[in-house]
């Protein structure tokens, strides 16, 4: 392992740790609600001893709430499993949207805590040949630095658009509110330097149009 790859791996480990911590937190919260709903069912049954009749509609609602939360927890675990398998994945061709969507899905809880929502613009068919885990890590570094510079008193919508320019592809991040794109870009460039070099990528910012762009070759260059 040379120095540059070592730094990419270190960033990857950091990313993996942060995401698994966030996901396990999300699962625990889901379990907490399932636990309370199950407990409430027990409470309602116990109240029948005191003469309070059981309301079948109420029981049905609670059972549905449990079912919905189990489904949600299952989705989270599925995401976690896919993420875990992606770490050692080879160079492959994927759409930029798939990469960004899976990164956003994993970071959903952290974003929600910061009052940040995501939208996607067309075109969603642009493809890139890459190592998905490493590109996801780069997108996460972008998100993390955007989160850090966003004032959580306001809600921010981050819209993703994708472009193909000659031999490159671009992930465009458009902000619904003013943020300091120059400072954010500088922080992303600093933190993501090893991955930017690895992916032969470049970061641009446009304060007027409130965008940050991540540009890279559409074919992976080893």
């Amino acid at each position: 392992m040379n120095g540059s790859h070592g730094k990419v791996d270190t960033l990857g480990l950091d990313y993996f740790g942060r995401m698994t911590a966030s996901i396990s937190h999300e699962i625990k919260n889901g379990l907490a609600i399932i636990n309370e709903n199950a407990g409430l069912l027990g409470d309602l049954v116990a109240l029948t001893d005191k003469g309070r009749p059981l309301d079948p509609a109420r029981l049905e609602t609670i059972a549905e709430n449990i079912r919905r939360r189990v489904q949600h927890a299952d989705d989270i675990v599925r995401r976690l499993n896919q993420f875990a398998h992606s770490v050692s994945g080879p160079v492959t061709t994927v759409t930029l949207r798939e990469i960004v969507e899976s990164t956003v899905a994993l970071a959903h809880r952290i974003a929600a805590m910061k009052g940040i929502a995501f939208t996607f613009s067309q075109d969603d068919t642009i493809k890139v040949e890459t190592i998905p885990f490493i590109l996801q890590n780069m997108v996460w570094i972008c998100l993390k630095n955007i989160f850090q510079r966003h004032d959580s008193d306001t809600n921010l919508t981050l819209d993703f658009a994708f472009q193909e320019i000659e031999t490159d592809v671009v992930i465009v991040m458009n902000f619904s509110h003013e943020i300091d794109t120059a400072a954010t870009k500088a922080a992303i460039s600093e933190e993501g330097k090893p991955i930017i070099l690895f992916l032969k990528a470049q970061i641009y910012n446009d304060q007027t149009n409130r965008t940050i762009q991540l540009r890279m070759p559409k074919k992976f260059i080893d």
Partner: protein
Amino acid sequence: MSIQVLLIDDDQEFLDVLSERLAIRGFDVTTAVSSRIALDRLKSESFDVILLDLQMPEMDGLQTLEKLTDMVPGQQIILLTAHATVAKGVQAMKLGAADVLEKPIDIRELVEKITKVATAKKPAPQSGKFFHQLFKKRTP
């Protein structure tokens, strides 16, 4: 008189279900879906015990804890968290939390802790309840 509890969590379903379970057990429960709403309520209401989720949007639980204890010195606060780390627990206790409970919660344990902290220590004279009563007395 029943123990008055303020339950703060960003998940409405968690608030609804846990508050009902506590109400069944005789507690008088008020809920707040954000730290801001809770802090607003505390300007005009007082509670024996506050149950506070550690991970909240806008303001995290430790920040909220600090604000709550500044606003109502002596307020009894139990933190609820999906992941209790020793460091966070120690920090929470230093900031004035009476206890920390990990989710999923054992309702019997929660009831015991609420009852214990509500009866163990009365709020300091500078508490919101005190100011509230003082303000009421002075208002013609």
